[in-house]
């Protein structure tokens, strides 16, 4: 009897594991489709690239990544620490406002700043008119450059690092920090030697998301004329008509990310980052005084002003200026379409992200870990490439079903899933699940396994441990995960554009089409709508994190 029960439990357990691995595989199909091109012949495109631009692509991509990586660490980690551990004028407001740039799509901030700061823009025009100069008589930084691309991407991507590191700082036990203080560490040393190292998994998780998104970016680098790897992919594909070489370039991009992730993992070695003390008390915030408080204010306000306020106001000005040219009647449908896609994808990503992370925790074996890793690569791949990776298996499946039905019953079923929203949402999940997964994982890694053991000793099953211990402890991470996906989908363009059904438009598509015709000011109204639709979830994320601190009573 007990033997039968054990067998049944084992079956359920293994069944669940197999199901999760199968799920990972299913979601990895687009990524694997891209990889499957590796063996094919590209007809000399590689030799040509190696002779010409390949090194340029690699060099520029590396510089872009390094620049963005360093800048987001500065813009993300330090303000997170400052607003969590200190109080200074505006710190409560900045606490959530620091997340706002997340609602701003990278290509839109790039267009906006170019409109303002380019040689033909109002700022340089003003300089020329006021001082009666001509172009070339004065120095002005060039916005459309590698430096410009680094700045633009950092300004909208740093919130990932800010969010995750802030969450980690909030979840750290004050006792650990107090111990460090009693050992003679000043606030700076407590930050650099205790808090940051403890928050490392979270900071790295945020940084990984930023770097992957940087590598996948096409809109910004293309507009700025920076030749990165992504530029290379599209040039090879569209310009030379070599989809194979393009897929191979994408595969190289993924391998690169894989190496990066593995290196980080290896450098962490066997270190674990669970919190050893479970004593939580109210965070003792240091009240900053004198010049320090103003420095803190300026430092924390800068990313919000540059990453959100300035471009937001510029967009609002343009939108007002072109209001008579914009067809607002279509906006409700565009907004509705954008929102329902974002909501669906966010919910699915949340559920899948949670189960996959959890399965990985229960069964941290090689198969499980590798399938999760392959899955995570989706975020580093340009949306168009993912879209093709989705088109191929969907079209193959539809056409196979059709062929079978024709042969068997003489009826054509046509395309069943291709060209439907199912394909669109599937692409979103493939592309954005890593965001949810990383966030949930970072949260879960901080819950000590002894908590699970305690639960188990009290007779709880895995499901109950998840429901009664982990979910309540992870509330903040789960909410953050789903809202990050929500905002990402709102901003997503290339996969939606190519996979969507007939007569289906979103805000991002409308914005892109006008911007693409070089009618930037007319695109401002719909761009502004994307930002506005994204702000609400972004604020919810922020507030919920403040409330999620263990030991924190949300109502006090």
């Amino acid at each position: 009897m007990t033997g039968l029960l054990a067998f049944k439990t084992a079956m359920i357990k293994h069944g669940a594991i197999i199901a999760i691995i199968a799920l990972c595989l299913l979601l990895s199909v687009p990524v694997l489709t891209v990889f499957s091109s590796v063996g094919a012949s590209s007809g000399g495109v590689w030799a040509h690239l190696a002779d010409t631009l390949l090194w340029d692509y690699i060099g520029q991509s590396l510089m872009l990544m390094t620049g963005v990586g360093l800048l987001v660490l500065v813009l993300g980690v330090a303000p997170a620490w400052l607003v969590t551990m200190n109080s200074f004028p505006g710190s409560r407001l900045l606490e959530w406002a620091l997340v706002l740039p997340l609602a701003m799509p990278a290509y839109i901030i790039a267009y906006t700043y170019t409109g303002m700061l380019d040689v033909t823009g109002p700022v340089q025009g003003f300089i020329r008119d006021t001082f009666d100069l001509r172009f070339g008589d004065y120095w002005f930084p060039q916005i459309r450059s590698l430096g410009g691309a680094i700045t633009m991407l950092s300004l909208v991507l740093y919130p990932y690092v800010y969010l995750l590191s802030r969450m980690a700082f909030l979840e750290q036990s004050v006792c650990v920090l107090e111990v460090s203080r009693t050992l003679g560490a000043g606030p700076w040393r407590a930050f650099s030697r205790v808090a940051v190292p403890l928050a490392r998994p979270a900071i790295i998780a945020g940084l990984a998301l930023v770097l992957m998104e940087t590598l996948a970016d096409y809109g910004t680098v293309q507009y700025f004329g920076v030749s990165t790897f992504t530029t290379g992919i599209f040039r090879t594909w569209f310009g030379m008509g070599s989809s194979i070489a393009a897929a191979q370039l994408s595969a190289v991009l993924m391998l690169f990310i894989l190496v990066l992730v593995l290196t980080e993992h290896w450098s962490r070695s066997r270190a674990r980052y669970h919190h050893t003390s479970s004593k939580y008390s109210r965070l003792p915030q240091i009240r900053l005084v004198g010049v320090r408080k103003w420095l803190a204010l300026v430092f924390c306000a800068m990313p919000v002003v540059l990453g959100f306020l300035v471009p937001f106001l510029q967009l609002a000005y343009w939108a007002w200026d072109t209001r008579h040219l914009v067809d607002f009647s279509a906006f409700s449908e565009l907004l509705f379409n954008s929102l329902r896609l974002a909501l669906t994808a966010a919910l699915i990503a949340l559920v899948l992200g949670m189960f996959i992370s959890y399965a990985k925790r229960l069964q941290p074996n090689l198969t499980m870990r590798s399938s999760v890793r392959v899955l995570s690569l989706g975020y580093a791949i340009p949306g168009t490439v993912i879209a093709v990776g989705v088109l191929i298996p969907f079209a193959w499946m539809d056409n196979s079903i059709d062929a079978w039905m024709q042969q068997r019953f003489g009826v054509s079923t046509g395309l069943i899933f291709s060209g439907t929203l199912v394909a669109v949402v599937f692409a979103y999940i493939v592309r954005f699940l890593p965001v949810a997964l990383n966030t949930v994982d970072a949260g879960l890694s901080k819950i000590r396994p002894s908590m699970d053991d305690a639960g188990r000793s009290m007779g709880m099953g895995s499901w109950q441990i998840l429901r009664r211990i982990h979910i309540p402890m992870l509330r903040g991470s789960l909410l953050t995960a789903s809202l990050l996906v929500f905002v990402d989908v709102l901003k997503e363009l290339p996969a939606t554009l190519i996979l969507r059904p007939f007569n289906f438009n979103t805000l991002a598509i409308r914005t892109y089409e006008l911007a693409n015709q070089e009618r930037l000011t007319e695109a401002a109204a719909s761009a502004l709508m994307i930002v506005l639709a994204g702000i609400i979830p972004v604020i919810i994320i922020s507030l919920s994190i403040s409330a999620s601190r263990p030991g924190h009573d949300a109502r006090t």
Partner: protein
Amino acid sequence: MLFGQFKKVCVSSVATLSVLAAGMLSAAEVNVYSARQENLIKPILDRFSEQTGITVNLITGGADELITRMELEGANSPADLLLTVDVGRLHRAEEMGLLQPIESDVLTSQIPEQYRDADNHWFAVSLRSRVIVYDKERVDPAELSTYEDLADPKWAGKICIRSSSNIYNQSLTASMVSHHGEEATEEWARGLVANMARNPQGGDRDQIAAVAVGQCELAVVNTYYLAGMLNATSEDQVEQAQAVAVFWPNQDGRGAHINVSGAGVSEHAPNREEAIQLLEYMVSDEAQTWYAEANNEYPVRTDVPVSDTLASWGEFKADPLALDELGIHNAEAVRVMDRAGWR
């Protein structure tokens, strides 16, 4: 026994479904994959629907992405009509076997021979030229002559042109490859790169604006961008556009480089007749006028008048090069530009 019943249920439900599907399909419709963006195509499609009762379903996107989608969807693709904004993509779709030849007296009689495929796989609907614009104050147009001349060292540091990733620069370079061969074109591209005032960046309107503020003296742009700026609501744009003038290159030789927007009927078009009907509508008087003016282009029909803005630039001689050539030499052109360091 059970299986037999199951089979019966299956067959009958499939039969019901197909009857339903047939019922749904009875309303005439046509599916368009368009690289021309929605605001520049939808109004004319709506007009077509009003006149014929045929519903038009539309997806817009990049031509390469749409072609990829058609290819992968294969025989079951719902696409009836593929509309692109450059001839290279039409050529590529034809090469990939995605388009079918169409016999239509309307199309062959209305569209000049140069602007349709020899085997009738695709038809141009509107035309644009890639021209030189120059700073009216600083450049004497007598100094200007040909595209080839842009590589002359006298223009060092004076030319603005966008990235070679842009299809219109690829097409222009492909036309050079077709006329002069790969080697000579590479030399030309090197000379052009050496003359650039800045790294290629931004779109065509940005190049015009850069000439207007004095960053460069010449720019190479498509005609409709300049016309769009001249007719813009923003005063800044109008002012910038007025600071430059159009120069038609190679008028003493082969003529100015031409590209087209055009369309072809999909190989597996489920609504072939309606697709042809739509294509024919697009060369009607009404559609030609609207379609060209919406994007400040030249109508493909010579008997339809051009907009006032375009008329003000005068008549010009167009390069009679077969448009296929632009598609045929596109990949070579990209390689040439790569080697010449044209980013």
